[in-house]
């Protein structure tokens, strides 16, 4: 049958061949690179200051938080789950980090390094604990991820609010913000380095390790995974912990950027991170998705928002446009799947 088919392909006229080439790259790279290019071109026409190094750095720096969170979200989605608590995790981490640093700053005013390290650890710990709770609920109490994470989100937000009384927490050492918020290394902002690292690690875990395989397997067919000797519960439990950990990294970075602990941040994170994943072709039914695309997805969303700001699109319009673009991206991806159909096997 394969011979048959390859015949029928080679038989096609030359015009088809080029389009085939385009299609191939389309299929291999996915739809996002194309969308990114389109966006870049459009916006650089609409605003002279868009296509400048400073602005593009800007865009990437802005996308850092979403990108990191999306990594975790993606892993959860791979298992067929959901994490609606990432926003709350951001908030809790931020509050915890700030409070810890503020208190420590009282005790040892001059050992900056200690303050910062311990503060960050405190933040990460708190965030990760939320993940542990999510994991326990989903993996061992069989609570639907949607409700588990939604419930925890609400609970955690309440806690964050009553910790801060709704007012920002300050008193963190300047150095914290200076390094993790605004510092640069090789003239590239520190947050970008960290995000890059996170994306790389995630890529490694998802594609190179058994755990990554387990994620796909559990999402693809839980019973089959179980019969093949994969500890589905452990896999699920871990994925929520990892997701929370990544979210709290984002939280720490955001805190550094804001220089205060805020209970009121991240509320748009859950939906945005899921959106970033879905336009990157991650299936909400689990088992399908690529790390690279998700990172692009996150950048894409931030890029569009930035571009629209620079193009001075009125902000009511912006909500309209962003909505339409999300849909357009997925529609385009549908086309891509069609092409895959045409190409597969040849």
């Amino acid at each position, binding site marked *: 049958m394969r011979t048959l088919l390859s015949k029928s392909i080679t038989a096609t006229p030359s015009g088809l061949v080029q389009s085939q080439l385009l299609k191939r790259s389309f299929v291999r790279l996915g739809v996002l690179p194309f969308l990114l290019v389109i966006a870049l071109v459009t916006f650089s026409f609409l605003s002279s200051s868009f296509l400048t190094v400073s602005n593009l750095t800007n865009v990437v720096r802005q996308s850092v938080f979403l990108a990191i969170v999306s990594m975790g979200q993606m892993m959860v989605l791979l298992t067929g789950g959901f994490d609606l608590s990432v926003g709350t995790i951001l908030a809790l981490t931020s509050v915890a980090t700030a409070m810890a640093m503020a208190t420590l700053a009282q005790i040892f005013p001059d050992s900056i390094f200690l303050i910062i390290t311990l503060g960050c650890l405190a933040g990460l710990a708190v965030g990760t604990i939320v993940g542990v709770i999510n994991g326990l609920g989903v993996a061992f109490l069989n609570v639907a991820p949607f409700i588990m994470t939604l419930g925890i989100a609400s609970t955690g937000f309440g806690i964050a609010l009553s910790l801060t009384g709704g007012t920002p927490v300050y008193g963190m050492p300047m150095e914290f913000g200076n390094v993790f918020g605004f510092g640069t290394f090789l003239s590239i902002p520190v947050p970008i380095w960290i995000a890059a690292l996170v994306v790389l690690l995630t890529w490694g875990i998802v594609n190179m390790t058994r755990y990554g395989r387990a994620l796909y397997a559990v999402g693809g067919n839980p019973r089959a995974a179980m019969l093949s000797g994969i500890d589905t519960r452990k896999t699920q439990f871990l994925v929520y912990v990892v997701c929370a950990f990544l979210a709290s990294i984002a939280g720490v970075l955001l805190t550094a950027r804001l*220089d*205060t602990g805020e209970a009121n*941040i991240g509320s748009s994170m859950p939906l945005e991170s899921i959106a970033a994943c879905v336009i990157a072709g991650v299936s909400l039914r689990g088992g399908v998705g690529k790390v690279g695309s998700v990172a692009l997805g996150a950048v894409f969303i931030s890029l569009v928002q930035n571009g629209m700001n620079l193009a001075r699109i009125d902000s009511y319009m912006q909500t309209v446009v962003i909505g339409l673009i999300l849909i357009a991206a997925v529609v385009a991806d549908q086309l891509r799947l069609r092409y895959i159909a045409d190409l597969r096997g040849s």
Partner: protein
Amino acid sequence: KDWFPYPVNIWEPPFVDDAVISDGEYVPLDKADQQHQLCVSFPHMKDAYWMAVNYGVVEEARRLGVNLQITEAGGYTELNNQISQIEDCVAGGGKALILGAISFDGLNNIIGQLKQKGVPVVDMINGVSSQDIAAKAIVSWRSVGRTLGQYLAEQHPAGSDPVKLAWFPGPAGAGFVEDATSGFKEGIEGSAVELVEVRYGDTGKEVQTRLIEDALQTYPDLDYVAGSAVAAEAGISVLRSNGLTDKVRLMSYYYTPGVDQGIRRGQVLAAPTDSTVIQSRIAVDQAVRILEGKGVTQHVAPQIFIINKDNVDIVDMNAVLAPGDFRPIFTVE
């Protein structure tokens, strides 16, 4: 006709808590020397209050002949987004920033950066703690709340028969909500007004409606419902449905067309105003003055006053509200 001169308070020295506050009159430039590009950043553009701010900055920009790009972050939970928008706007060629801050401290970094870039920041409406700002056109929400509290306290001084009040300030955690609340508490201190309940809640009308309904169930003998304008507006219909219109009285700590209508119809007792439109106009003028190196009163704000049935007809509403037919504008060229 012109809006100025306008009665204001002036803080000397600026930006400090123990400043001396003196009365004065504000008079802006009558034209800008050149067509500057200014950035304006709002927490959101989803209610009549910020519409008034929008109206103010837009009108003043037109009057002075400068360009504006106005962005809105989408809500008080979108601090991160506001920062991005500011970065973007400046990247897009903004020479100065007029800031309606989401967070009291959360923007200090970006403000610091802007100062280094030589982009002056004018702080309006909400206020920030940063010392790197170039000017402030701010009626602090705390004093607004206090004014309302004192107004109420005058009517129910200590010793007079006590009254019960429930307070619905708006979303928990938003800076202006917490400030207005503590200000209001200070205001009613030592009076016969008993604050029986503080209920936070999203400033969607349906949420506020529900909160008020429940409060009425909890305290059948409630005398006052006060809080955000949304709460007041929601209160109107709730009271009507429970036939409590003349038993329970409504107040708001800021001014909107709904409140205005309520006051005129006698459904709302009173509301203070920070002369929102003027405040915004002043902020724009300050920004231009700074850019053109002309003398600027660094820390100034319109005097707060209470609007109620007695003075509602004589107040110049163009200083307080956007005209009914006004629609938000995001760029002035």
